């Protein structure tokens, strides 16, 4: 059945079959990207569309906009803490599970489960866990620390001046490190045991095996994890909204875009932020897609 389907003279059928989705992608992705670019070059402010040409003014204003600077800084903090945290933690979990311990399946699922939860749920829970209240109203982690006599660990979490984003990233690490673990675990399992044995025979200790054999062999996995986590952190929105709401110290480009467009009716500026976000994600993703496509073709 499949053979007849893929024969050349039936190709028209496959084109008909995929044409609705191609059309939908064309219209709802590419046409709308084009439209957003056009809006970002306009003076549109207010509820009625206004396509008066404004050149790159919206972009230029953003680059001198104090709030956008805060956004970029927050995104960098979030990305740094989240990506590095998830990769390190994910790798360690994977190495642990790879030691052939009892109940591996149980722990694997346990570490993976957070990924199945939506950011909103994570946010609501972590909002409570990271409650910065003091005195009798102390709760969440801070209360736990006080029970454990670890009071020095108590802190203001996401309300810490300047570094609050790092606390938000903690929640994201909790959610995504299981996923990174799964990536690494698959990578570790694909490394043939002979390589380790050969290294052992050559006199390498365990640390050296990881440093010179395992880690280099896992670099494609690290790259994938870096790209996937990196582009997620550029677009982060729901987690912050669930934990902290719309507040300036925890502002990121996606929240600014949403607020300025729908609360403030600055459509031109909102579109400009959207396009900048698109570009930053594309810079990260496109080389990676090209790389994977190439390697897949080679295989």
């Amino acid at each position: 059945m499949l053979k007849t389907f893929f024969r050349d003279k039936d190709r028209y059928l496959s084109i008909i079959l995929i044409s609705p989705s191609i059309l939908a992608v064309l219209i709802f992705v590419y046409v709308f990207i084009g439209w957003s670019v056009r809006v970002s070059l306009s003076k549109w402010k207010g509820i009625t569309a206004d396509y008066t040409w404004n050149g790159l003014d919206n972009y230029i204003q953003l680059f001198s906009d104090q709030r956008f600077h805060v956004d970029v800084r927050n995104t960098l903090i979030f990305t740094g803490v989240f990506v590095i945290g998830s990769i390190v933690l994910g790798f360690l979990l994977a190495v642990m599970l790879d030691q052939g311990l009892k109940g591996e399946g149980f722990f694997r699922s346990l570490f993976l489960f957070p990924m199945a939860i939506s950011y909103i749920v994570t946010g609501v829970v972590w909002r409570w866990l990271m409650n910065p209240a003091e005195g009798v109203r102390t709760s969440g982690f801070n209360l736990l620390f006080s029970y454990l006599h670890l009071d020095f660990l108590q802190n203001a979490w996401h309300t810490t001046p300047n570094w609050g984003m790092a606390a938000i990233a903690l929640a994201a690490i909790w959610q995504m490190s299981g996923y990174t673990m799964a990536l690494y675990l698959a990578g570790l399992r694909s490394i043939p045991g002979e390589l380790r044995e050969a290294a052992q025979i050559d006199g390498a200790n365990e640390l050296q095996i990881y440093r010179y054999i395992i880690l280099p062999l896992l670099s494609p996995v690290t790259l994938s994890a870096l790209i996937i986590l990196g582009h997620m952190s550029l677009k982060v929105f729901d987690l912050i909204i669930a934990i902290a709401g719309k507040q300036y110290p925890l502002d990121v480009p996606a929240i600014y875009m949403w607020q300025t467009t729908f609360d403030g009716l600055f459509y031109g500026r909102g579109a400009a932020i959207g396009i900048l976000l698109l570009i930053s994600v594309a810079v990260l993703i496109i080389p990676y897609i090209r790389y994977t496509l190439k390697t897949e073709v080679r295989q």
Partner: protein
Amino acid sequence: MSKKLYALLAVLLIAATVLTACGGGAPAGGSKVEVFSWWTGGGEAAGLEAMIKVFNAEYAGVEFVNAAVAGGAGTNARAVLASRLQAGDPPDSWQGHAGQELIGTYVAGKQIEPLNDLYEAEGWLSVMPQTLIPLISQDGNIYSVPVNIHRANVLWYNPGILTANNVAVPTTVDEWIAAMETLQAAGVQPLALGEQWTKMHLLETVLLGTLGADKYNGLWDGSTDWGSAEVTAALDNFVTIMGFANTDSASLSWQDASQLVINGDAAFNVMGDWAEGYFRELGKTPNTDYGWAPVPGSVGVFQFLSDSFVLAVGAPDPEAATDWLKVAGSKAGQEAFNPVKGSICARTDCDKTLFGVYLQSAMDDWSNNIVVGSLTHGVVANDSWKSEIDTALGAFIADLNVSAFQSALVAACQNSGPCQ
């Protein structure tokens, strides 16, 4: 055989897509009115239902279509409404905060009709406060029918804490600051504050309390200079007052913050009078568990906000839409809606016995106070202006730099307000 099967599948798939796209058009018959709102839960939805009942009784021939959109305190609904208006498919009438939130957005876009004739025909001008009308008008045209009134400048306090510390309810900003100093010295948390928008709410009441009603109104029509020394003084007061607030304010919702007062964890909280509905829901008793007063400095002034309904330009059924507005502005309609929602009537002739102790006192003030509008809740500034003030406020909360904040406020008024 298999080829036919796939061809059939393809045709079915395309047909299904096309049919779904075309579906949904119910046959129209008789007149109907589509009313758009974000009243989908709690007292608001129940109040709307009560008002719809009044409407159905009076206009039996008109079908009422409740096009409410849930979520985000109206943010989602407003986005949906914006896309419908851009597509030229307006509902007959929609909900909006009375004042510049409606006027700045929809009058500028020529999307709502003036309602002066309706106000005259229904005699509303004589039953609503005179100082209210200019706040819901532009160039002499009235643009919406307010259904309910909430008060923004309310200072909630814990009577037990004040008595225990011999602190009288303050009536001026200076008294307030002195009272909070006393409380702080006694180890009491003087002020409960929540996330960013509740700080904007506090800011507008401190501006009002420091500047007084006339100069406060002047901020919004351009006659009070945002860069003036008086505004600096108000902002200095704001910084001082915020200094008495809980350190975890950024992580508290307005409910959390106002609850600190009734739980005895804080002495004062500034919040709109929907907080009273929340206190009652928690089973608290007015004047025992919580007391109220106008925010210090604003005695005799009623800083209001209101949900109101408009008439769409190009409404599919303008006559039915007008019928709806008549109900929304009528005594029967407002008496049905407000006791359920926990707000007072925009009319001053509603039956007081329908309301609780707090709301009765608010009704008295509504009928004899000077009425000014709220910033946070859309009366005095258009959306763009408000969002610029919000951004400036956010930066200010982080660095507490008064002069930078004030110049940002001046710039906001120039960019999106009446200051040129």
